[in-house]
């Protein structure tokens, strides 16, 4: 359960995060996404092919309540998040590709998310409020567009919004940890280990499959690391916003379980993966000129 105050706060936070995401983008990023269909293809396949299917399998084979299964599916179907860029940076991945994949999956999500959700929900025999989800997705694209125009008008305001957006991205996780966890403590104790398996597995297995998918396309190791992180790291705040704004309050607790837990665990999972990637990163790296200042 979340009270109304928390719900409003969550909404505002997600809006600011999306605003910040918009402020980090330029029209050129979209233009580039369109001009490079290969990158687009990889982004769409990993984000809307691999992840939803993984979510579907987890929901199908783990013995969970229908509402929990819906949460797994939702979490699997949202686009890539901004946090993937941070981990890509520390993994010495390809930042440009990371941004490109996030942009692609966020924009194409308006069409693809409801479509894929409908298919898998039907397969799992779960009901979803499709129109409401589309509405929320559209509403959340508005701050992205605003963020982009603000940056164009004033780079300082843009950079400031982006700064607060990325801080909020971190605070959001803290916020979940200090509000949602205590409020739902009993629920978390009673829920089965399958819920936790899904919350952790979605990220961990997603990253692993993403990596081997990229490898199978013979991508450069740097790009493979990027695709891996981009695949496994989802936009947690967006999933939570969809739930808060489309489902009745009494259903939210169970549906939100996996997205909330996922948002917490993905930080740990990605950090570990980053360490592995950094260790593996030896050869063929682009080197910065050492000393220009």
């Amino acid at each position, binding site marked *: 359960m979340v009270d109304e105050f928390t719900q409003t706060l969550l909404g505002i936070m997600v809006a600011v995060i999306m605003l910040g995401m918009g402020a980090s983008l330029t029209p050129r990023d979209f233009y580039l996404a369109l001009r490079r269909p290969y990158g687009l293809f990889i982004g769409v396949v990993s984000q809307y092919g691999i992840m939803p299917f993984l979510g579907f399998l987890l929901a199908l084979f783990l013995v969970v309540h229908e509402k929990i299964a819906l949460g797994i599916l939702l979490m699997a179907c949202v686009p890539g998040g901004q946090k993937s860029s941070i981990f890509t940076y520390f993994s010495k991945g390809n930042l440009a590709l990371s941004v490109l994949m996030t942009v692609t999956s966020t924009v194409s999500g308006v069409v693809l998310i409801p479509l894929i959700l409908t298919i898998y929900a039907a397969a799992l025999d779960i009901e979803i409020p499709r129109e409401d989800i589309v509405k929320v997705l559209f509403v959340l694209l508005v701050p992205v567009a605003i963020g982009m125009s603000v940056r164009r008008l004033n780079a300082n305001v843009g950079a*400031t919004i982006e700064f607060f957006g990325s801080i909020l991205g971190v605070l959001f996780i803290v916020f979940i940890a200090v509000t949602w966890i205590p409020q739902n403590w009993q629920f978390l104790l009673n829920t089965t280990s399958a819920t936790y398996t899904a919350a952790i597995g979605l990220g961990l297995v997603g990253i692993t499959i993403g990596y081997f998918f990229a490898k199978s396309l013979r991508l450069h190791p740097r790009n493979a690391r990027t695709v891996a992180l981009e695949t496994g790291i989802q936009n947690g705040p967006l999933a939570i916003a969809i739930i808060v704004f489309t489902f009745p309050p009494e259903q939210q607790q169970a549906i939100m379980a996996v997205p909330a837990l996922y948002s917490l665990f993905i930080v740990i999972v990605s950090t570990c993966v980053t360490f592995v990637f950094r260790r593996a990163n030896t050869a063929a790296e*682009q*080197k*910065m*000129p050492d000393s220009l200042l």
Partner: protein
Amino acid sequence: MVDTDRPWQAYYGANIRPVLDQATYRNIPDMIHSVAETYGKAKAFTCVLPNGMNGTLTFKQIDEMSDAMAVYLREIAGLSVGDRVAVQLPNCLGFPIAAFGILKAGCVLVNVNPMYTSEEMAKQFEDAEPHVLITIDMFADKVVEATRGHPIPNVIVTRVAEFFPAMPRGIVGLVQKYWDKVLKPIEVPHVRLPAALNAGREHIKNDRIEAEKYSQEVTLDDIAVLQYTGGTTGVAKGAMLTHGNLIMNMEQAMELLAGDMQKGEEVILTALPLYHIFAFTVNMLSFYWLGARNILIPNPRPLSNLKRAFENYKITWMSGVNTLFNGLNNEIWFRHSPPKHMKFAGAGGMALQAAVAERWREVAGCDVLQGYGLTETSPVLTFEPLGKAREGTIGIPVPSTEVACFDEHGQKLGIGEVGEIAARGPQIMKGYWKKPEETDNVMIDDWFLTGDIGVMDEDGYFRIVDRKKDMVVVSGFNVYPNDVEDVIATHPGVLEVAVIGVPDNSSGEAVKAFIVLSDKTLKQDDIRSFCKDHLTSYKVPKRVVFRDELPKSNVGKILRKDLRAEEMAQIAAE
């Protein structure tokens, strides 16, 4: 009418005057002020941080603030004409204010590298004896130790986001302090730059002082800048560059661009540090004079720090060194969306490798033209004329400049003869600060000897064969490391390369190549056989070693001398 002594004049085209008149201005302050009158509220300098946060000052603001700076230096710090003021700043809005203010006060600017250790600073301070130091909070912790030998009573401190709007300024300050932890406590008495400017303004208002009066006594022959350099002998010394040197070089550099650059319309990127003479004269002075907007990058490392500047501004010109262009060629974001509005780029500071220039043309879709010069020559001596560049050359001399090759007896050589490049013109320094014997070593009458070995073709294009001291003698044959490096650099698996000579029992000296690979599977023999296809056998490196990186100077020049020192130390140890 072509001068047979100056065949290059045929390549100037209609727009370029072969000889420039006497400087248009009385001194640099005169230029600063009159340019500000013309461009007034247009944007002059914009400092851009990696996240896109920025601050901008107009021509009028720069003029007003540098007036206040000058008044502070004269009235409050109590300086007189000719007193030295050290400036130790990365590219930021404080730089032009400090530099212009010092010159307006009739004082001498001493550029100090912000990355210097306190020992290096101390050496320079002891030689230049500055009365005031203008520095940045990030590096101010070195001041205590650096001023032990020569105390500096007045320290003015600025910060990287100075004169930014309040919000970004605050954010940058907090991030630097608590996240990056780069701000250490400053243990010397100091005044903040804005406070110094306010104090200057108070004097202007209350005592009706006009900053203009300070520079009235300054002539073109007075020293404007002490620019430190290792020079040809390696001993650090200050080249005395006069107001006349800098104004003339600014006009010379711009003359060659006449017609290609529009007054008041260009937006240029300054990623090279302004304390370096190339960026100081060409980026700061010349483009200010042209009324361009100057995008200042405090720290171009890593190169992704430049991304926002390229995205947010329509850059029409940029300057760089080989390392910078090579780096950008290899950046994915740069390759994906190269700057659309760039007319061309200017390279200097070190030899631009043909492979890098070629790749730049493919990636950025515009030319990169190389200029050549030295600290002692303010710095520009030659430049490749747009559309008439010739691969492998450093172009032709700028107007009002004579360049020729000299043999070891000081005799002028003819076309095609290899010798030491010498130059004369209005940009040649007045001499080395307090080192007349060093000055004598590099001057033959009014000709300045560059220490570079080169050759002139029949059209007056010059080609550098190598640095005098870098030449390797293999069994009596001269090998110029640049020739070998140029070949190795064209190998697709090679990222960077440096070549030096090492002692060798059989050949006297042998060629040794240090290589940073992008394709780590390559073996020594691959490189050698590649060289054999392209070079005479005595030039092929006898030894090849692979490194993760190469030693570089603060502007990104690969330091062969460090590699040589390493080699010597190793031999001594054996």
